[in-house]
């Protein structure tokens, strides 16, 4: 047990012990959410800034509610309504927030590494809420929490991540977390979206969906981000659905206790059909509930953490 980091930037640099500390802490915070009074004073008087340079609704709301439940004050800062539009640099924006004595800055940015950049020069804690195609650590942590809650363990489970791996920060964070916790990870999707390079860090790569899901304990579906115009990566959405979409027929050929996960928002009828998304194997809404607990834990832990240089000394 133990957490002494100022920031939560990625899963890659965390130890298995640190991941377990977050999950254990989240369990206690989940219980808080089930009480009549869902608020604790752990971050009373603290200021949390949601710095969302890339649009997001669900992650921002989840972090916002998490901060409120810890009694922190929350400021939401979005790219559309900010000085970034007027040409201010990210560094200057962050410095201004720090001049207002913000204690924790939650950042989502389309550039990989933006949270790490801020963490280096800010005294405030930084939490990565998604940076480009790099990482989305709290998503992976809530996925681990959900698996642990439903299956009782992670080690030795077969987890298949299905879809757009190439552009997915959710996939990267999940892969790191799953490998560190001892799961067997299979990646599947169109060859253009599932690079073989992932085999080097210990994943299995296959392009045959039936084979990928046959022995899976968990199927984590990734959203096809059709709004980002990756039309060149596969011929059409309809073809993707035909070749890789999850439906009743494909589900029938999996383990009966397989869990279906999805980071949301789901494209009904693309990566998953409606019946399957709403079916009894789906834990998609549990993931949302658990996301709140995991983000409370993340805020709570970074608040007590030290900058890494100091912690190491």
């Amino acid at each position: 047990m133990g957490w002494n980091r100022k920031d939560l930037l990625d899963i890659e640099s965390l130890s298995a012990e640190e991941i377990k500390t977050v999950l254990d802490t989240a369990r206690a915070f989940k219980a808080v959410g089930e009480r009549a009074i869902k608020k604790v004073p752990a971050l009373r008087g603290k200021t949390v800034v949601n710095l969302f340079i890339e649009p997001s609704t669900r992650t921002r709301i989840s972090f916002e509610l998490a901060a409120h439940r810890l009694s922190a004050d929350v400021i939401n800062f979005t790219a559309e309504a900010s000085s970034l539009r007027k040409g201010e640099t990210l560094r200057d924006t962050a410095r201004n927030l720090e001049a207002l004595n913000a204690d924790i800055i939650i950042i989502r940015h389309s550039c990989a590494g933006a949270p790490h950049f801020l963490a280096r020069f800010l005294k405030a804690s930084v939490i990565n809420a998604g940076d480009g195609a790099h990482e989305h650590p709290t998503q992976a942590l809530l996925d681990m929490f959900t698996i642990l809650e439903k299956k009782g363990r992670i080690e030795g489970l077969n987890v298949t991540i299905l879809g757009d791996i190439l552009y997915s920060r959710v996939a990267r964070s999940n892969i790191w977390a799953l490998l560190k916790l001892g799961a067997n990870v299979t990646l599947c999707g169109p060859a253009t979206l599932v690079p073989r390079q992932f085999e080097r860090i210990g994943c299995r790569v296959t392009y045959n969906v039936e084979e990928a899901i046959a022995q899976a304990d968990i199927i984590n579906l990734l959203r096809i981000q059709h709004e980002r115009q990756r039309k060149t990566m596969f011929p059409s959405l309809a073809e993707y659905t035909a070749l890789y979409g999850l439906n009743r027929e494909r589900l029938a050929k999996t383990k009966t206790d397989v869990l279906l996960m999805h980071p949301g928002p789901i494209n009904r009828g693309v990566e998953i059909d409606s019946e399957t998304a709403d079916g009894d194997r789906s834990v998609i809404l549990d993931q949302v509930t658990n996301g709140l607990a995991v983000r409370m834990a993340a805020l709570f832990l970074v608040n007590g953490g030290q900058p890494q240089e100091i912690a190491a000394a």
Partner: protein
Amino acid sequence: MSEIRVIMEASEVQRALEKIGTELAQLDKPGTDVVLVGIQRGGVPLAQRLSKILSRHWGHTVPVGSVDVSMHRDDLNHRPAPDVHPTVIPFDINNRTVVLVDDVLFSARTIRAAMDALNDFGRPKRIQLAVLIDRGHRELPIKADFVGKEIRTAIDEIVTVQLTEDGAATDRVVLEKK
């Protein structure tokens, strides 16, 4: 060099708990509105033991819960985040007598945090405090209603209650001098 001294053996721990149980049982007859809440972590096994003793006195079971004070501490800014354990209060505390149970009473900041945490679950008729050891050095105006043993300590000494529930070979209380 630190020096470790045993200040209570297993039999004394047992006697101290019996003494707390007897006092509590007499004060709160018939005890039907009493619930015990152990403070994580040291207070939880003691609350369970006390429940057994009280059941003998009163002839009915006495519910036991646990409270973790990590989220209510007043020193969260001064140290790494503490390990958080579950708070489990599987009963209504409104209009009940809640007896908080802890192993060692020291600054009383933990007790203050525990009372705050209980507020989120309801409004007890009253809150009482039972501790195995009172070692002095209070930093808040709080005192225990039931004390197993009072000991004089220097402020930098460490008092540890070791219980078989936590894997100790035998129950005992040790004092460590710096």
